[in-house]
């Protein structure tokens, strides 16, 4: 399965971006191979309207089955829910590496959408 993290930059030691719609980018990790790829979110960051629903569409397009972020707003949340993507939350300041480990250990809190 692929899991998407909202990220402040590209790299395992970058931090999770607590914003969803206006996150800097998405860090996508394949849990079978631990391989990561980075998807820039500038386009949504720059959107005047609907950054949340538009970012949700981007995450869906990556084929991710789960998302880790700070908090997801109600509109984006309903898109992710309809697409069957589980949303997990982390504290501010967590690195992508730590967040990924916590995710694999099942220690992240699920956001009820």
């Amino acid at each position, binding site marked *: 399965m692929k899991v998407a993290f909202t990220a402040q930059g590209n790299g395992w030691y970058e931090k999770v971006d607590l914003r969803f719609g206006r996150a800097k980018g998405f860090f996508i990790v394949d849990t079978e191979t631990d391989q990561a790829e980075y998807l820039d979110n500038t386009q949504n960051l720059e959107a005047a309207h*609907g950054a949340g629903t538009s970012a949700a569409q981007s995450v869906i397009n990556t084929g991710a089955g789960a998302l880790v972020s700070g908090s997801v707003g109600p509109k984006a949340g309903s898109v992710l829910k309809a697409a069957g993507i589980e949303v997990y939350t982390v504290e501010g300041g967590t690195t992508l590496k730590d967040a990924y480990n916590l995710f694999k250990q099942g220690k992240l809190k699920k956001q009820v959408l």
Partner: protein
Amino acid sequence: MDTEEGDVKMKIAVASGKGGTGKTLISTNLARVALEQGSVTLFDLDVEEPNAHLFFSEVEQKSEPVEKMIPVVDVSICELSGVCSKVCEYHAIITLANQVMVFPELCHSCYGCLEMCPSKAISEGKKQIGMIKHGAKDHLQLISGLLKVGESATTALIRDVKKFPIQKSGLQIYDAPPGTSCPVIETVKDLDYVILVGEPTPFGLHDLNLLVQVLQEIGQPFGVVVNKAVTGNDRIEQYCAQKGLEILAHIPLRSDIAGAYAKGQLVSEVLPDVKQIFQELLETVTRKVNGAVA
């Protein structure tokens, strides 16, 4: 210029850069003194908090819903092409693997998805954005817009309220929403004249100046009324002199005016000296508008 009964056919707005400056005080009292000369239609376009009706409780208003278009997707025809989501600048319609989701709060009713759907699966749905309340008594017709709580389609609602049919020709007064953005521009754009209300505080002057710039940019004629005027404070006078703007009237900062207003009274009905201020204001504005036409 002689103004005979029913002869005044101008459209004027009362506007201010921020709420709480006395816009409604001025629009309602202007309507009151104008009723002595002929018919008046008062539009309350402060749609987030319309309260002009509080001063004319004798007018019974009926309500009608105002709706806007939102897309409705026919799932039996939809081929999930994703075109609607690509063309929507507001990200209000999202295509998933097995369905299309619509977000009415984000939709601006531009009809783009409906126009461009390759399988013609989108049709016109309706969503209520607010109400028009309307009623008349004698020579007064009162038309108010009321935005639904949580709705953001202020401009669309104002556009619809302005189209409501007027019963008798005569003076039309538009109580504009506060601010300097689209809703106020939509209100004033095709009217004859705008009365700007400003308070002589630093914040008040700052907000007045923003609205002056907007009206100058769109080329609307306007003049300024100083509300809560305090003797010795000539902040707005200095500003207007410097910018070459006309001051139409001063309404003093007085506890009897504030008190009457808070009780839901029309000050021009209880305070004769204030009534005179509004009569003179109406004459001044009438002269301005007719002068511009001639």
